[in-house]
């Protein structure tokens, strides 16, 4: 796989290292010519190029035209956005990935069709939520650009839903209880499954309905 990484900060360096270790062909693009020497000694001169990843001449020389993936991880969201859009519009790159520094910018990136975004703030926050909040419902992932949440619910004997048959629960629209873990055994959730304290239930829920699901599983 040929991966072009734009932005030679810490994220870009670590990412390029990992990709190289995996055996991928990697080119790290860094705008600041002064730091290219340091990057070259870390990653090998053949894997580093000085240049502004938003400039078409640089993109051509870097080989955007044959890249399997372009990953923009600079500290500026506007630069990451433009790199990814040009990769798609000008060079027909199949997969583009952007780091989003300001979580408020995530909806825009999704709307303009950047396939995938990574927000450090968002990830750290969701990890914090998992570990700090005494919440019964934890986010474990997201689908469809964050529109659908994959959540995990732990039932205690104080859960409102404990002891209830699944078909009797009034679930929010488009919400599915998919699978549960009981005594280290995985079970598909059926209509006649009775939820039991100690169960860990995995559910798919549209982001806008997750609050309703949370209430359903709240504790007394």
């Amino acid at each position: 796989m040929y991966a072009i990484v734009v932005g030679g900060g810490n994220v870009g360096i670590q990412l390029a290292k990992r990709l190289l270790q995996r055996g991928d062909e990697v080119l790290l693009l860094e705008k600041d010519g002064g730091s290219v020497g340091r990057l070259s000694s870390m990653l090998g001169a053949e894997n580093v190029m000085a240049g502004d990843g938003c400039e078409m001449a640089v993109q051509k020389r870097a080989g955007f035209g044959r890249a399997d993936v372009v990953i923009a991880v600079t500290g500026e969201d506007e630069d990451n956005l433009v790199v990814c859009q040009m990769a798609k519009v000008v060079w027909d790159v199949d997969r583009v990935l952007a780091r989003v520094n300001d979580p408020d910018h995530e909806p825009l990136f999704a709307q303009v069709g950047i396939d995938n975004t990574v927000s450090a703030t968002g990830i750290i926050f969701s990890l914090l939520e998992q570990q700090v909040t005494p919440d019964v419902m934890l986010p474990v992932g997201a689908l469809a650009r964050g529109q659908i949440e994959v959540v995990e619910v732990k039932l205690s004997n104080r859960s409102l839903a404990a002891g209830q048959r699944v078909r009797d629960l009034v679930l929010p629209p488009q919400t599915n209880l998919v699978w549960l873990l009981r005594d280290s055994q995985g079970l598909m959730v059926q209509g006649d499954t009775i939820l039991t304290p100690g169960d860990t239930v995995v559910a798919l829920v549209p982001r806008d309905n997750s609050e309703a699901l949370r209430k359903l599983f709240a504790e007394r």
Partner: protein
Amino acid sequence: MKVLIFGCGRTGSTLALELVRRGHEVTLIEQNPSALIRLGENHGCNVVLGSGLEEDTLERAGIREADVFFAATRGDNSNLMAAQVARFRFQVPRICIKCADPLRAEAYRRLGYVCITPSLLTAGLMRDWLLGEPSQPIDAYNVLPDALKI
């Protein structure tokens, strides 16, 4: 018309003053307070301090009622991103972008944006002046010479 302009540099301030003089309601968004000196006194523009990339700043500037959004900072990428915030997050009907890099401008024209590239415009006007040709519609100046194409 209600006009929103991001960037009070030479371009943004001149555009703002010209439109105010013609009776339009202009709001400027500018991050740097000292840039506002370009407007002079009694300029008649509304001014909001902040970044045109931030949705709350744009809302404070009245983007929901704006008829047109100009992205006129000196940062091409800031302009291109702000224009897309205006289009996708606020559905502003008309958007015009200043983009110094002619190749970047060309890419975003393909996405349906109106991009004005000062260097192409200036070179075209200089050429017309020399050759005594009448000035032409904008699109005639947005053409990149073949030698500069990639």
